[in-house]
Protein backbone atom coordinates (compact mmCIF):
# COMPACT_ATOMS: atom_id res chain seq x y z
CA UNK A 1 0.00 0.00 0.00
CA UNK A 2 1.26 3.44 -0.86
CA UNK A 3 -0.47 5.02 2.13
CA UNK A 4 1.75 7.60 3.80
CA UNK A 5 3.13 6.04 6.98
CA UNK A 6 1.64 8.34 9.57
CA UNK A 7 2.01 7.59 13.21
CA UNK A 8 -1.09 5.81 14.47
CA UNK A 9 -2.12 6.89 17.92
CA UNK A 10 -4.75 4.28 18.74
CA UNK A 11 -3.62 0.64 18.83
CA UNK A 12 -5.29 -2.41 17.36
CA UNK A 13 -5.50 -1.24 13.76
CA UNK A 14 -3.87 -4.31 12.23
CA UNK A 15 -5.84 -6.73 14.37
CA UNK A 16 -9.23 -5.11 13.87
CA UNK A 17 -8.83 -4.50 10.14
CA UNK A 18 -7.36 -7.96 9.59
CA UNK A 19 -10.23 -9.56 11.43
CA UNK A 20 -12.79 -7.47 9.55
CA UNK A 21 -11.42 -8.27 6.13
CA UNK A 22 -10.86 -11.99 6.82
CA UNK A 23 -14.34 -12.48 8.28
CA UNK A 24 -16.04 -10.52 5.51
CA UNK A 25 -14.11 -12.43 2.85
CA UNK A 26 -14.84 -15.87 4.31
CA UNK A 27 -18.51 -15.29 5.09
CA UNK A 28 -19.63 -12.95 2.30
CA UNK A 29 -17.16 -12.16 -0.47
CA UNK A 30 -15.73 -15.57 -1.39
CA UNK A 31 -19.15 -17.33 -1.32
CA UNK A 32 -20.60 -14.55 -3.49
CA UNK A 33 -17.68 -14.90 -5.88
CA UNK A 34 -18.70 -18.55 -6.23
CA UNK A 35 -21.92 -17.37 -7.93
CA UNK A 36 -19.96 -15.61 -10.65
CA UNK A 37 -17.37 -18.37 -10.94
CA UNK A 38 -20.07 -21.00 -11.36
CA UNK A 39 -22.07 -18.95 -13.86
CA UNK A 40 -18.88 -18.45 -15.89
CA UNK A 41 -18.88 -22.20 -16.50
CA UNK A 42 -21.74 -21.68 -18.92
CA UNK A 43 -20.69 -20.38 -22.32
CA UNK A 44 -22.13 -16.97 -23.18
CA UNK A 45 -24.80 -18.37 -25.54
CA UNK A 46 -26.04 -20.84 -22.92
CA UNK A 47 -25.97 -18.16 -20.24
CA UNK A 48 -27.96 -15.80 -22.43
CA UNK A 49 -30.46 -18.54 -23.21
CA UNK A 50 -31.00 -19.36 -19.53
CA UNK A 51 -31.49 -15.77 -18.40
CA UNK A 52 -33.80 -14.84 -21.27
CA UNK A 53 -36.25 -17.74 -21.40
CA UNK A 54 -39.80 -16.35 -21.35
CA UNK A 55 -40.58 -17.73 -17.89
CA UNK A 56 -37.49 -16.07 -16.40
CA UNK A 57 -38.15 -12.80 -18.22
CA UNK A 58 -41.73 -12.81 -16.92
CA UNK A 59 -40.34 -13.21 -13.39
CA UNK A 60 -38.01 -10.20 -13.85
CA UNK A 61 -40.97 -8.17 -15.02
CA UNK A 62 -42.94 -9.14 -11.93
CA UNK A 63 -40.08 -8.82 -9.42
CA UNK A 64 -38.85 -5.48 -10.70
CA UNK A 65 -42.26 -4.08 -11.66
CA UNK A 66 -43.92 -4.95 -8.35
CA UNK A 67 -40.84 -3.76 -6.41
CA UNK A 68 -40.88 -0.40 -8.22
CA UNK A 69 -44.59 0.06 -7.68
CA UNK A 70 -44.36 -1.00 -4.01
CA UNK A 71 -41.50 1.42 -3.38
CA UNK A 72 -43.50 4.19 -5.04
CA UNK A 73 -46.59 3.43 -2.92
CA UNK A 74 -44.37 3.42 0.16
CA UNK A 75 -43.18 6.92 -0.72
CA UNK A 76 -46.74 8.15 -1.29
CA UNK A 77 -48.02 6.79 2.04
CA UNK A 78 -44.77 6.78 4.00
CA UNK A 79 -44.45 10.56 3.73
CA UNK A 80 -47.82 11.28 5.44
CA UNK A 81 -47.01 8.63 8.03
CA UNK A 82 -43.62 10.17 8.80
CA UNK A 83 -45.18 13.64 8.74
CA UNK A 84 -47.94 12.67 11.19
CA UNK A 85 -45.42 11.00 13.52
CA UNK A 86 -43.10 14.02 13.59
CA UNK A 87 -45.49 16.94 13.47
CA UNK A 88 -48.87 15.95 14.84
CA UNK A 89 -50.24 14.51 18.04
CA UNK A 90 -52.78 11.72 17.94
CA UNK A 91 -53.79 8.92 20.26
CA UNK A 92 -51.62 5.81 20.03
CA UNK A 93 -48.76 7.65 18.39
CA UNK A 94 -46.02 5.93 20.42
CA UNK A 95 -47.38 2.52 19.49
CA UNK A 96 -47.66 3.42 15.81
CA UNK A 97 -44.12 4.79 15.87
CA UNK A 98 -42.74 1.60 17.43
CA UNK A 99 -44.72 -0.70 15.11
CA UNK A 100 -43.45 0.99 11.95
CA UNK A 101 -40.36 -1.21 12.36
CA UNK A 102 -42.46 -4.37 12.49
CA UNK A 103 -41.37 -5.52 9.00
CA UNK A 104 -37.73 -5.43 10.22
CA UNK A 105 -38.52 -7.52 13.27
CA UNK A 106 -41.20 -9.90 12.02
CA UNK A 107 -39.82 -12.96 10.21
CA UNK A 108 -40.76 -12.82 6.54
CA UNK A 109 -42.46 -16.22 6.59
CA UNK A 110 -44.75 -15.01 9.39
CA UNK A 111 -45.51 -11.85 7.45
CA UNK A 112 -46.29 -13.96 4.40
CA UNK A 113 -48.86 -16.22 6.02
CA UNK A 114 -50.35 -13.29 8.00
CA UNK A 115 -50.84 -11.19 4.87
CA UNK A 116 -52.37 -14.19 3.12
CA UNK A 117 -54.80 -14.66 6.02
CA UNK A 118 -55.84 -11.00 5.88
CA UNK A 119 -56.17 -10.74 2.10
CA UNK A 120 -57.50 -14.21 1.18
CA UNK A 121 -61.11 -14.43 -0.02
CA UNK A 122 -62.36 -15.23 3.50
CA UNK A 123 -59.88 -12.90 5.26
CA UNK A 124 -60.56 -9.71 7.22
CA UNK A 125 -59.99 -7.48 4.19
CA UNK A 126 -60.27 -10.03 1.39
CA UNK A 127 -63.96 -10.67 2.09
CA UNK A 128 -64.72 -7.02 1.29
CA UNK A 129 -62.32 -6.72 -1.63
CA UNK A 130 -63.36 -9.86 -3.49
CA UNK A 131 -67.01 -8.79 -4.10
CA UNK A 132 -65.54 -5.62 -5.63
CA UNK A 133 -63.67 -7.82 -8.10
CA UNK A 134 -60.30 -7.27 -6.42
CA UNK A 135 -58.52 -10.57 -5.78
CA UNK A 136 -55.32 -9.99 -3.85
CA UNK A 137 -54.17 -13.38 -2.62
CA UNK A 138 -52.61 -15.73 -5.18
CA UNK A 139 -52.31 -13.00 -7.83
CA UNK A 140 -49.59 -10.47 -8.77
CA UNK A 141 -51.50 -8.00 -6.57
CA UNK A 142 -50.59 -10.22 -3.62
CA UNK A 143 -46.91 -9.87 -4.54
CA UNK A 144 -47.38 -6.11 -4.49
CA UNK A 145 -49.06 -6.17 -1.05
CA UNK A 146 -46.22 -8.24 0.43
CA UNK A 147 -43.59 -5.93 -1.04
CA UNK A 148 -45.41 -2.86 0.30
CA UNK A 149 -45.41 -4.46 3.76
CA UNK A 150 -41.66 -5.10 3.87
CA UNK A 151 -40.86 -1.63 2.44
CA UNK A 152 -42.82 0.49 4.94
CA UNK A 153 -40.00 1.22 7.43
CA UNK A 154 -37.45 2.18 4.80
CA UNK A 155 -39.22 5.34 3.64
CA UNK A 156 -40.63 6.33 7.04
CA UNK A 157 -37.33 5.86 8.89
CA UNK A 158 -35.34 7.72 6.25
CA UNK A 159 -37.70 10.69 6.09
CA UNK A 160 -38.51 10.92 9.82
CA UNK A 161 -35.13 12.12 11.15
CA UNK A 162 -34.72 14.60 8.29
CA UNK A 163 -38.18 16.00 8.96
CA UNK A 164 -37.39 16.21 12.67
CA UNK A 165 -34.15 18.07 12.17
CA UNK A 166 -35.59 20.42 9.59
CA UNK A 167 -35.02 23.99 10.69
CA UNK A 168 -38.41 25.54 11.33
CA UNK A 169 -36.98 28.95 10.39
CA UNK A 170 -37.22 28.09 6.70
CA UNK A 171 -40.97 27.71 7.03
CA UNK A 172 -41.25 30.83 9.16
CA UNK A 173 -39.33 32.78 6.55
CA UNK A 174 -41.55 31.48 3.75
CA UNK A 175 -44.70 32.34 5.73
CA UNK A 176 -43.46 35.80 6.63
CA UNK A 177 -42.69 36.45 2.95
CA UNK A 178 -46.36 35.78 2.17
CA UNK A 179 -46.29 32.14 1.01
CA UNK A 180 -49.38 30.10 1.75
CA UNK A 181 -48.89 26.89 3.72
CA UNK A 182 -49.35 24.82 0.54
CA UNK A 183 -46.72 26.87 -1.25
CA UNK A 184 -44.34 26.53 1.70
CA UNK A 185 -44.71 22.78 1.78
CA UNK A 186 -44.41 22.38 -1.98
CA UNK A 187 -41.59 24.85 -2.62
CA UNK A 188 -39.65 24.76 0.67
CA UNK A 189 -40.27 21.58 2.69
CA UNK A 190 -40.67 18.95 -0.03
CA UNK A 191 -37.48 19.91 -1.91
CA UNK A 192 -35.54 19.49 1.34
CA UNK A 193 -37.10 16.06 1.80
CA UNK A 194 -36.44 14.89 -1.76
CA UNK A 195 -33.05 13.26 -1.10
CA UNK A 196 -34.48 11.35 1.87
CA UNK A 197 -37.55 10.28 -0.10
CA UNK A 198 -35.40 9.05 -2.98
CA UNK A 199 -33.07 7.20 -0.61
CA UNK A 200 -36.05 5.55 1.10
CA UNK A 201 -37.45 4.64 -2.32
CA UNK A 202 -34.15 3.05 -3.39
CA UNK A 203 -33.76 1.12 -0.12
CA UNK A 204 -37.33 -0.19 -0.29
CA UNK A 205 -36.86 -1.13 -3.94
CA UNK A 206 -33.57 -2.93 -3.32
CA UNK A 207 -35.08 -4.93 -0.49
CA UNK A 208 -38.23 -5.74 -2.46
CA UNK A 209 -36.41 -7.05 -5.54
CA UNK A 210 -34.78 -9.88 -3.62
CA UNK A 211 -37.63 -10.56 -1.19
CA UNK A 212 -38.70 -14.16 -0.93
CA UNK A 213 -40.33 -15.25 2.34
CA UNK A 214 -43.22 -12.83 2.59
CA UNK A 215 -44.06 -13.15 -1.11
CA UNK A 216 -44.26 -16.87 -1.81
CA UNK A 217 -47.20 -17.54 0.50
CA UNK A 218 -49.45 -14.86 -0.95
CA UNK A 219 -48.29 -14.96 -4.58
CA UNK A 220 -49.76 -18.26 -5.77
CA UNK A 221 -46.48 -18.74 -7.67
CA UNK A 222 -48.04 -19.37 -11.07
CA UNK A 223 -45.34 -19.53 -13.77
CA UNK A 224 -45.46 -16.52 -16.17
CA UNK A 225 -48.02 -14.81 -13.89
CA UNK A 226 -47.09 -14.59 -10.23
CA UNK A 227 -43.67 -16.20 -10.01
CA UNK A 228 -40.87 -13.99 -8.62
CA UNK A 229 -37.22 -14.30 -9.68
CA UNK A 230 -35.90 -15.62 -6.31
CA UNK A 231 -38.43 -18.45 -6.59
CA UNK A 232 -37.07 -19.30 -10.06
CA UNK A 233 -33.65 -19.73 -8.47
CA UNK A 234 -35.09 -22.05 -5.81
CA UNK A 235 -37.03 -24.06 -8.39
CA UNK A 236 -33.94 -24.55 -10.54
CA UNK A 237 -31.95 -25.61 -7.48
CA UNK A 238 -34.59 -28.16 -6.54
CA UNK A 239 -34.28 -29.59 -10.07
CA UNK A 240 -30.47 -29.76 -9.54
CA UNK A 241 -30.04 -27.19 -12.33
CA UNK A 242 -27.18 -25.48 -10.48
CA UNK A 243 -25.84 -23.69 -13.56
CA UNK A 244 -29.27 -22.30 -14.42
CA UNK A 245 -29.95 -21.18 -10.85
CA UNK A 246 -26.54 -19.53 -10.71
CA UNK A 247 -27.00 -17.71 -14.01
CA UNK A 248 -30.27 -16.15 -12.87
CA UNK A 249 -28.68 -15.35 -9.49
CA UNK A 250 -25.76 -13.62 -11.25
CA UNK A 251 -28.19 -11.37 -13.11
CA UNK A 252 -29.91 -10.47 -9.84
CA UNK A 253 -26.58 -9.86 -8.11
CA UNK A 254 -25.45 -7.44 -10.79
CA UNK A 255 -28.71 -5.53 -10.38
CA UNK A 256 -28.20 -5.50 -6.59
CA UNK A 257 -24.69 -4.10 -6.96
CA UNK A 258 -25.92 -1.34 -9.23
CA UNK A 259 -28.68 -0.52 -6.74
CA UNK A 260 -26.17 -0.45 -3.89
CA UNK A 261 -24.10 2.04 -5.84
CA UNK A 262 -27.14 4.22 -6.51
CA UNK A 263 -28.11 4.11 -2.82
CA UNK A 264 -24.62 5.18 -1.78
CA UNK A 265 -24.74 8.15 -4.15
CA UNK A 266 -28.21 9.09 -2.87
CA UNK A 267 -27.14 8.85 0.75
CA UNK A 268 -24.14 11.07 0.12
CA UNK A 269 -26.49 13.57 -1.51
CA UNK A 270 -28.86 13.35 1.46
CA UNK A 271 -26.03 14.08 3.90
CA UNK A 272 -24.83 17.04 1.88
CA UNK A 273 -28.29 18.57 1.64
CA UNK A 274 -28.85 18.01 5.38
CA UNK A 275 -25.67 19.91 6.12
CA UNK A 276 -26.87 22.68 3.86
CA UNK A 277 -30.25 22.81 5.62
CA UNK A 278 -28.42 23.42 8.89
CA UNK A 279 -25.86 25.87 7.60
Amino acid at each position, binding site marked *: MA*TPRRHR*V*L*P*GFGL*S*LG*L*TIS*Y*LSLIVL*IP*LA*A*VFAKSAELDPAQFWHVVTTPRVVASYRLSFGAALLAAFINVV*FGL*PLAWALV*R*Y*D*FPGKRIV*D*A*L*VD*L*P*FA*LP*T*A*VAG*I*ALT*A*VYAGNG*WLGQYLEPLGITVAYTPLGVLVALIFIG*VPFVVRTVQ*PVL*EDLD*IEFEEAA*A*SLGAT*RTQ*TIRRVVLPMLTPALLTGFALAF*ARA*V*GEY*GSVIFIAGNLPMVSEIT*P*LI*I*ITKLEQYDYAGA*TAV*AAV*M*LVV*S*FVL*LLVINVLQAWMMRSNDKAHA
Partner: protein
Amino acid sequence: MSTASSTAPWNRSARFTSNPAAREPGAIRWLVIGVALTFFAVFLLLPLLAVFAEALRKGWAAYLAAISAPDALSAMRLTLLAAAVAVPLNLVFGIAAAWAIAKHDFRGKNVLITLIDLPFSVSPVIAGLCYVLVFGAQGWFGPWLAAHGIKIVFAVPGIILATIFVTVPFIARELIPLMQAQGRDEEEAALVLGASGWQTFARVTLPNVKWGLLYGVILCNARAMGEFGAVSVVSGHIRGQTNTMPLQVEILYNEYSFAAAFAVASLLALLALVTLVVKTIIEWRAGAELRPDEAP
Protein backbone atom coordinates in the same frame (compact mmCIF):
# COMPACT_ATOMS: atom_id res chain seq x y z
CA MET B 1 -32.22 4.17 11.82
CA SER B 2 -29.25 4.75 14.07
CA THR B 3 -29.88 5.44 17.72
CA ALA B 4 -28.42 8.89 17.46
CA SER B 5 -31.08 10.13 15.08
CA SER B 6 -34.15 8.30 16.35
CA THR B 7 -35.03 10.40 19.33
CA ALA B 8 -38.50 10.20 20.78
CA PRO B 9 -40.36 12.46 18.36
CA TRP B 10 -43.55 12.77 20.41
CA ASN B 11 -41.77 15.06 22.85
CA ARG B 12 -40.94 17.41 20.06
CA SER B 13 -44.02 17.78 17.90
CA ALA B 14 -45.14 20.70 20.11
CA ARG B 15 -42.71 23.05 18.40
CA PHE B 16 -44.55 22.41 15.14
CA THR B 17 -48.14 22.40 16.40
CA SER B 18 -47.65 25.59 18.41
CA ASN B 19 -45.99 27.53 15.61
CA PRO B 20 -48.50 29.11 13.21
CA ALA B 21 -45.87 29.23 10.47
CA ALA B 22 -45.42 25.45 10.53
CA ARG B 23 -48.98 24.37 11.12
CA GLU B 24 -51.59 23.07 8.72
CA PRO B 25 -55.34 23.73 9.07
CA GLY B 26 -57.13 21.22 11.33
CA ALA B 27 -58.96 19.49 8.48
CA ILE B 28 -55.73 18.84 6.59
CA ARG B 29 -54.02 17.65 9.75
CA TRP B 30 -56.74 15.06 10.36
CA LEU B 31 -56.72 14.05 6.70
CA VAL B 32 -52.98 13.35 6.85
CA ILE B 33 -53.36 11.46 10.13
CA GLY B 34 -56.28 9.52 8.62
CA VAL B 35 -54.30 8.51 5.52
CA ALA B 36 -51.27 7.61 7.64
CA LEU B 37 -53.23 5.50 10.09
CA THR B 38 -55.26 3.72 7.40
CA PHE B 39 -52.04 2.77 5.62
CA PHE B 40 -50.56 1.67 8.94
CA ALA B 41 -53.62 -0.43 9.85
CA VAL B 42 -54.05 -2.11 6.46
CA PHE B 43 -50.41 -3.07 5.94
CA LEU B 44 -48.97 -3.45 9.44
CA LEU B 45 -51.52 -3.73 12.22
CA LEU B 46 -54.03 -6.14 10.66
CA PRO B 47 -51.43 -8.73 9.61
CA LEU B 48 -49.93 -8.65 13.11
CA LEU B 49 -53.32 -9.16 14.76
CA ALA B 50 -54.18 -11.86 12.23
CA VAL B 51 -51.22 -13.98 13.40
CA PHE B 52 -52.63 -14.19 16.93
CA ALA B 53 -56.25 -14.52 15.85
CA GLU B 54 -55.43 -17.42 13.54
CA ALA B 55 -53.15 -19.05 16.12
CA LEU B 56 -55.96 -19.15 18.69
CA ARG B 57 -58.71 -20.04 16.26
CA LYS B 58 -58.91 -23.61 17.57
CA GLY B 59 -58.55 -22.61 21.19
CA TRP B 60 -55.81 -22.59 23.78
CA ALA B 61 -55.52 -26.37 24.08
CA ALA B 62 -54.73 -26.76 20.38
CA TYR B 63 -52.39 -23.78 20.59
CA LEU B 64 -50.39 -25.26 23.45
CA ALA B 65 -50.31 -28.65 21.76
CA ALA B 66 -48.98 -27.06 18.56
CA ILE B 67 -46.16 -25.18 20.24
CA SER B 68 -45.11 -28.15 22.35
CA ALA B 69 -45.06 -30.66 19.48
CA PRO B 70 -41.66 -32.40 19.21
CA ASP B 71 -40.97 -30.97 15.75
CA ALA B 72 -41.81 -27.49 16.98
CA LEU B 73 -39.53 -27.86 19.98
CA SER B 74 -36.62 -29.12 17.89
CA ALA B 75 -37.20 -26.19 15.50
CA MET B 76 -37.01 -23.81 18.46
CA ARG B 77 -33.75 -25.41 19.62
CA LEU B 78 -32.18 -25.04 16.18
CA THR B 79 -33.35 -21.44 15.86
CA LEU B 80 -31.85 -20.59 19.26
CA LEU B 81 -28.62 -22.37 18.34
CA ALA B 82 -28.29 -20.50 15.04
CA ALA B 83 -28.83 -17.16 16.78
CA ALA B 84 -26.51 -18.12 19.64
CA VAL B 85 -23.67 -18.66 17.16
CA ALA B 86 -24.45 -15.91 14.65
CA VAL B 87 -25.02 -13.02 17.04
CA PRO B 88 -21.77 -13.29 19.07
CA LEU B 89 -19.68 -13.78 15.92
CA ASN B 90 -21.26 -10.77 14.25
CA LEU B 91 -20.83 -8.83 17.49
CA VAL B 92 -17.06 -9.43 17.45
CA PHE B 93 -16.99 -8.60 13.75
CA GLY B 94 -19.03 -5.43 14.28
CA ILE B 95 -16.77 -4.17 17.05
CA ALA B 96 -13.60 -4.95 15.08
CA ALA B 97 -14.96 -3.30 11.92
CA ALA B 98 -16.12 -0.21 13.82
CA TRP B 99 -12.78 0.09 15.65
CA ALA B 100 -10.83 -0.13 12.40
CA ILE B 101 -13.10 2.19 10.45
CA ALA B 102 -14.04 4.80 13.04
CA LYS B 103 -10.78 5.10 14.96
CA HIS B 104 -8.26 4.89 12.13
CA ASP B 105 -7.64 6.37 8.69
CA PHE B 106 -6.91 4.16 5.75
CA ARG B 107 -7.47 4.06 2.05
CA GLY B 108 -10.52 2.22 0.74
CA LYS B 109 -12.53 2.85 3.87
CA ASN B 110 -15.71 3.70 1.96
CA VAL B 111 -15.36 0.58 -0.17
CA LEU B 112 -15.11 -1.49 3.01
CA ILE B 113 -18.24 0.16 4.46
CA THR B 114 -20.12 -0.63 1.25
CA LEU B 115 -18.93 -4.25 1.30
CA ILE B 116 -20.13 -4.66 4.89
CA ASP B 117 -23.60 -3.53 3.78
CA LEU B 118 -23.58 -6.00 0.89
CA PRO B 119 -25.66 -8.76 2.57
CA PHE B 120 -28.52 -6.27 2.93
CA SER B 121 -28.81 -5.84 -0.82
CA VAL B 122 -28.30 -9.48 -1.77
CA SER B 123 -31.45 -11.58 -2.00
CA PRO B 124 -31.54 -14.08 0.88
CA VAL B 125 -32.08 -16.83 -1.68
CA ILE B 126 -28.73 -15.96 -3.27
CA ALA B 127 -27.10 -15.98 0.19
CA GLY B 128 -28.23 -19.57 0.57
CA LEU B 129 -27.27 -20.44 -3.00
CA CYS B 130 -23.67 -19.33 -2.62
CA TYR B 131 -23.11 -21.72 0.28
CA VAL B 132 -24.57 -24.55 -1.80
CA LEU B 133 -22.07 -23.61 -4.52
CA VAL B 134 -19.16 -23.65 -2.09
CA PHE B 135 -20.03 -26.57 0.18
CA GLY B 136 -22.68 -28.54 -1.76
CA ALA B 137 -22.09 -31.89 -3.44
CA GLN B 138 -21.40 -30.10 -6.76
CA GLY B 139 -19.55 -27.25 -5.06
CA TRP B 140 -15.89 -26.24 -4.63
CA PHE B 141 -15.32 -28.21 -1.45
CA GLY B 142 -18.11 -30.74 -1.99
CA PRO B 143 -15.98 -33.75 -2.96
CA TRP B 144 -13.44 -33.09 -0.19
CA LEU B 145 -16.15 -32.69 2.44
CA ALA B 146 -17.91 -35.85 1.24
CA ALA B 147 -14.63 -37.79 1.40
CA HIS B 148 -14.15 -36.70 5.01
CA GLY B 149 -17.78 -37.33 5.97
CA ILE B 150 -18.46 -33.69 6.80
CA LYS B 151 -21.91 -32.35 5.95
CA ILE B 152 -22.42 -28.60 5.79
CA VAL B 153 -25.19 -27.99 3.28
CA PHE B 154 -28.57 -29.56 4.15
CA ALA B 155 -27.28 -29.80 7.73
CA VAL B 156 -26.96 -27.60 10.79
CA PRO B 157 -23.62 -25.91 9.87
CA GLY B 158 -25.13 -24.64 6.60
CA ILE B 159 -28.08 -23.16 8.45
CA ILE B 160 -25.75 -21.39 10.85
CA LEU B 161 -23.55 -20.09 8.01
CA ALA B 162 -26.57 -18.76 6.08
CA THR B 163 -27.82 -17.07 9.25
CA ILE B 164 -24.44 -15.44 9.80
CA PHE B 165 -24.35 -14.19 6.20
CA VAL B 166 -27.66 -12.35 6.34
CA THR B 167 -26.91 -10.79 9.75
CA VAL B 168 -23.31 -9.65 9.13
CA PRO B 169 -24.04 -5.91 8.78
CA PHE B 170 -26.46 -5.32 11.68
CA ILE B 171 -24.08 -4.55 14.55
CA ALA B 172 -21.32 -3.02 12.43
CA ARG B 173 -23.64 -0.53 10.77
CA GLU B 174 -24.95 0.66 14.16
CA LEU B 175 -21.48 1.04 15.65
CA ILE B 176 -19.60 2.62 12.74
CA PRO B 177 -21.56 5.92 12.51
CA LEU B 178 -21.83 6.13 16.30
CA MET B 179 -18.10 5.67 16.88
CA GLN B 180 -17.26 7.99 14.01
CA ALA B 181 -19.43 10.70 15.55
CA GLN B 182 -17.77 10.25 18.94
CA GLY B 183 -14.30 10.84 17.53
CA ARG B 184 -11.01 9.68 19.03
CA ASP B 185 -10.22 12.28 21.68
CA GLU B 186 -11.35 10.24 24.68
CA GLU B 187 -9.43 7.14 23.62
CA GLU B 188 -6.30 9.19 22.91
CA ALA B 189 -6.59 10.80 26.33
CA ALA B 190 -6.91 7.38 28.00
CA LEU B 191 -3.77 6.16 26.22
CA VAL B 192 -1.82 9.27 27.18
CA LEU B 193 -2.85 8.65 30.78
CA GLY B 194 -1.29 5.21 30.57
CA ALA B 195 -4.19 2.86 29.81
CA SER B 196 -3.48 -0.14 27.60
CA GLY B 197 -5.33 -0.61 24.34
CA TRP B 198 -7.74 -3.14 25.80
CA GLN B 199 -8.33 -1.02 28.90
CA THR B 200 -9.09 1.96 26.69
CA PHE B 201 -11.55 -0.07 24.71
CA ALA B 202 -13.26 -1.66 27.71
CA ARG B 203 -13.47 1.45 29.89
CA VAL B 204 -13.81 4.28 27.38
CA THR B 205 -15.14 3.07 24.03
CA LEU B 206 -17.50 0.35 25.18
CA PRO B 207 -19.45 2.46 27.73
CA ASN B 208 -19.83 5.17 25.08
CA VAL B 209 -21.41 2.85 22.54
CA LYS B 210 -23.37 0.54 24.84
CA TRP B 211 -26.82 1.59 23.61
CA GLY B 212 -25.87 1.40 19.96
CA LEU B 213 -24.30 -1.98 20.61
CA LEU B 214 -27.39 -3.33 22.33
CA TYR B 215 -29.58 -1.90 19.58
CA GLY B 216 -27.53 -3.71 16.93
CA VAL B 217 -27.56 -6.96 18.92
CA ILE B 218 -31.35 -6.84 19.31
CA LEU B 219 -31.95 -6.30 15.58
CA CYS B 220 -29.30 -8.88 14.64
CA ASN B 221 -30.94 -11.42 16.91
CA ALA B 222 -34.41 -10.78 15.49
CA ARG B 223 -33.17 -11.32 11.97
CA ALA B 224 -31.10 -14.36 12.96
CA MET B 225 -34.10 -16.07 14.50
CA GLY B 226 -36.46 -15.07 11.72
CA GLU B 227 -34.39 -15.66 8.59
CA PHE B 228 -36.29 -17.72 6.06
CA GLY B 229 -35.07 -17.47 2.46
CA ALA B 230 -31.37 -18.13 2.97
CA VAL B 231 -31.94 -20.87 5.52
CA SER B 232 -34.60 -22.46 3.34
CA VAL B 233 -32.09 -23.00 0.51
CA VAL B 234 -29.45 -24.72 2.66
CA SER B 235 -31.75 -26.58 5.03
CA GLY B 236 -33.01 -29.53 3.04
CA HIS B 237 -36.12 -29.40 5.26
CA ILE B 238 -35.44 -32.50 7.33
CA ARG B 239 -38.09 -32.53 10.03
CA GLY B 240 -36.84 -32.50 13.57
CA GLN B 241 -33.27 -31.99 12.33
CA THR B 242 -32.75 -29.07 10.00
CA ASN B 243 -35.93 -27.10 10.45
CA THR B 244 -35.78 -23.71 12.09
CA MET B 245 -38.96 -22.09 13.38
CA PRO B 246 -39.70 -20.11 10.20
CA LEU B 247 -39.20 -23.28 8.13
CA GLN B 248 -41.48 -25.20 10.50
CA VAL B 249 -44.11 -22.51 9.91
CA GLU B 250 -43.82 -23.08 6.17
CA ILE B 251 -44.08 -26.87 6.44
CA LEU B 252 -47.12 -26.77 8.69
CA TYR B 253 -48.75 -24.16 6.47
CA ASN B 254 -48.16 -26.17 3.31
CA GLU B 255 -49.68 -29.19 5.05
CA TYR B 256 -52.80 -27.10 5.68
CA SER B 257 -52.21 -27.28 9.46
CA PHE B 258 -53.01 -23.57 9.55
CA ALA B 259 -53.68 -23.23 13.27
CA ALA B 260 -50.41 -25.00 14.12
CA ALA B 261 -48.49 -22.92 11.57
CA PHE B 262 -49.88 -19.71 13.06
CA ALA B 263 -49.19 -20.98 16.59
CA VAL B 264 -45.47 -21.35 15.83
CA ALA B 265 -45.64 -18.07 13.89
CA SER B 266 -47.17 -16.35 16.92
CA LEU B 267 -44.05 -17.16 18.96
CA LEU B 268 -41.96 -15.46 16.29
CA ALA B 269 -44.39 -12.53 16.27
CA LEU B 270 -44.03 -12.25 20.05
CA LEU B 271 -40.28 -12.22 19.60
CA ALA B 272 -40.73 -9.40 17.09
CA LEU B 273 -42.86 -7.44 19.55
CA VAL B 274 -40.33 -7.92 22.37
CA THR B 275 -37.63 -6.76 19.95
CA LEU B 276 -39.60 -3.60 19.15
CA VAL B 277 -40.27 -2.87 22.83
CA VAL B 278 -36.60 -3.28 23.79
CA LYS B 279 -35.58 -1.23 20.77
CA THR B 280 -37.95 1.58 21.74
CA ILE B 281 -36.66 1.58 25.32
CA ILE B 282 -33.08 1.77 24.04
CA GLU B 283 -33.99 4.70 21.84
CA TRP B 284 -35.50 6.57 24.79
CA ARG B 285 -32.50 5.88 27.02
CA ALA B 286 -30.01 6.80 24.31
CA GLY B 287 -32.08 9.86 23.39
CA ALA B 288 -32.26 10.98 27.02
CA GLU B 289 -28.49 10.61 27.40
CA LEU B 290 -27.81 12.50 24.22
CA ARG B 291 -30.08 15.39 25.10
CA PRO B 292 -30.30 15.53 28.90
CA ASP B 293 -31.65 19.08 28.79
CA GLU B 294 -34.65 18.05 26.69
CA ALA B 295 -35.52 14.93 28.65
CA PRO B 296 -39.11 14.93 29.89
